């Protein structure tokens, strides 16, 4: 069984939710978890919930990196922080992958510091799984967008590598045999988007192993046109935050409307089942977090607001990725195609 390190102290609700998530995993699966953090705080939570101690190990450390800490300084200074200690444990072979709801920047930097990049990889990518509309029956309702913020600006060679990594991940995790890859751009025409994106488009078209569907626009993100969307970190991050913002505003608007008029309240009540389904679709807690791809080890970054269920699903996805040898699949994909240097 794979051993997954879990940053117990990370996120807005650490350690309570991280520990509860791990406890849940211990009862439902054979996955073994290495909980990294303050042993006394972890134990205090653990004893209050049902758990199976046989698959939980605790790696004690004193410190933690806050959500508002400067990532660079925190990783440099806080050597005994749960995130840093956990990543080190994975690098030393004590666990096979890591899950954290902690500081995103610090997560990426800690990985960059301790993990080895796969041969030929220039930069790691933070891939985000998000819900979208499906175009045909059986299509995966989740798409993968990368990079979501690990590399602010990218060169064509890096974007091509992201496409190969995302495609390999989707093949293994989403079980899509030939994932459709799209390049996020301001127009569908191959000549749109400036020099770097035109060049990326040209290189992607030359890779027969990729099922490249061409440029995709903003509105295509939520449609089923592509299973893997490639873009530079700045753009990806803005797009994902926009989704989250729209979703939250819609919820707020509906709530405010319900408070104002009885008829609207009745209407919302009638629509409640449908709304619940939409909410379930956009619920990040069931997607298991965002993988940081490109390293020999896998890191699943869960949402900072993650609660037990989201952490548990993050651990399950990490275990699945370990079992399905995702890093090796990515390495194979890159080595077979010149590391993307088309």
């Amino acid at each position, binding site marked *: 069984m794979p051993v997954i390190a879990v940053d117990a102290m990370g996120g807005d609700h650490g350690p309570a939710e991280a520990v509860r998530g791990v406890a849940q995993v211990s009862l439902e699966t054979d996955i073994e978890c290495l909980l990294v953090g303050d042993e006394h705080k972890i134990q205090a939570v653990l004893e209050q919930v049902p*758990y*199976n101690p*046989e698959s939980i*190990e605790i790696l004690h450390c004193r410190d933690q990196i806050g959500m508002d800490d400067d990532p660079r300084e925190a990783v440099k200074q806080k050597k005994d922080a749960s995130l840093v200690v956990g990543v080190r444990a994975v690098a030393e072979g004590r666990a096979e992958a890591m899950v954290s709801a902690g500081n995103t920047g610090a997560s990426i930097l800690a990985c960059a510091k301790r993990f080895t990049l796969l041969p030929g990889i220039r930069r790691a990518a933070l891939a985000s799984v998000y819900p979208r509309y499906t175009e045909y029956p059986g299509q995966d309702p*989740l798409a993968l967008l990368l990079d979501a913020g690990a590399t602010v600006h990218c060169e064509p060679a890096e974007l091509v590598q992201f496409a190969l990594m995302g495609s390999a991940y989707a093949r293994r*995790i989403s079980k899509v045999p030939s994932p459709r890859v799209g390049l996020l751009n301001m127009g569908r025409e191959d000549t749109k988007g400036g020099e770097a994106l035109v060049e990326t488009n040209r290189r992607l078209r030359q890779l027969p192993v990729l099922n490249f569907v061409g440029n995709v626009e903003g509105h295509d993100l939520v449609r089923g046109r592509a299973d893997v969307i490639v873009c530079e970190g700045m753009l990806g991050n803005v797009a994902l935050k926009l989704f989250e913002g729209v979703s939250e505003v819609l919820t707020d608007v509906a709530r405010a409307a319900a408070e104002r008029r009885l008829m609207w309240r009745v209407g919302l009540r009638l629509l409640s089942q449908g709304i619940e389904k939409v909410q*379930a679709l956009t619920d990040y807690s069931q997607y298991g977090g965002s993988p940081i791809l490109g390293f020999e080890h896998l890191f699943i970054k869960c949402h900072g607001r993650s609660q037990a269920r989201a952490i548990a699903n993050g651990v399950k996805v990490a275990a699945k990725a370990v079992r399905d040898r995702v890093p090796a699949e990515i390495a194979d994909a890159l080595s077979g195609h010149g590391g993307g240097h088309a």
Partner: protein
Amino acid sequence: MSLIRRRPVSHAPLPALLCRWDLDKTYLRSEFDTLRQLWRTARESGADKVEVPGVADVIKALRNAADRRGRPVAIHFISASPPQIGKAIREKLALDGIRYDGIVFKNQLQHIARGRFRNLREHVGFKLAELLRGRQGSAPGTREVLFGDDWESDPLTYSLYADVVAGRLPPDRLGPILTRIGVDPEAVPVVLGLAEEVGGAEGVERIFINLERRTPPASFQLFGPRLVPAFNYFQTAIVLAADGLIDTEDVARVARALLDRSGYTPRRLENSLADVLRRNLVSLDAARSLSEPLRADGLLPPARRRRGEWVERMRARLRRLRRPTPPAPQTGPLDYDAILDWYRDRFRPAPTRPDDAGAAS
């Protein structure tokens, strides 16, 4: 030097040891959550019955260790199952090589015949009476270790019994508790009469509760440090060894049985040991002196040598220094009002909620 807590060396003979075991969910992996499972359980033969991993080895360890010490020991089973399944149970115990000194079943047909259907599910009165009867027949000064599970009322029954035997719960205080529990009014005077006869000297050393339902261990704080919630029989064996009731070689046998027959791994055993340690059920020194031979035998993973390990060790020592002192020995009875409130809340039906979906894609 062995650092496991041992009894002081004395030439006086050790008092007799009486180990009393529940059967379903403690010894046997009985499934009777539904009528179909109940029917199937009733029809099983001894060979069909499955024991909880490691339980048979713990029972054998208790007897073997007592024999090595020249200590009289008796193993008794008290089950709320009807005597009609006794044949299959006896077959199972024989198959597992368990030597026992007594077994009692609950006569459920008698309750049905008398129309006392409530008594079919109320076991406190029955078990308490049987425990007290068993105590009457044992030698003075007999020490007891009780084994049950977290499904129904074992923690409560065993704790009541321990407090009665210790003289902390006289009949006038026990009566209202039994009434609140809902013990058959006809059975209450019988239990109180028995309680009057046996009460007076501390007799129950430990109560082990097999966490078959994975009840959070903190839930049992109300029952005091005498009660040990254990997730598996390796944990039980560790605490028994730390109490000086079995030896390291016995713990090793339990560990070997779990590894060979029940799919455990050295890592899972190590995690179980660490959990016992974190819950302060054994001291760090006891855990260390137990684990070293187990590691040498390959039953636990090799010790991990890490950079800065000595720093960790120093920190651990400091943490231990900061830890609160062990709880004072129990002087009065437990807070049974709080315990019964806990039971009431625990068995109140939980509100239903939509099923959680698994990790998508």
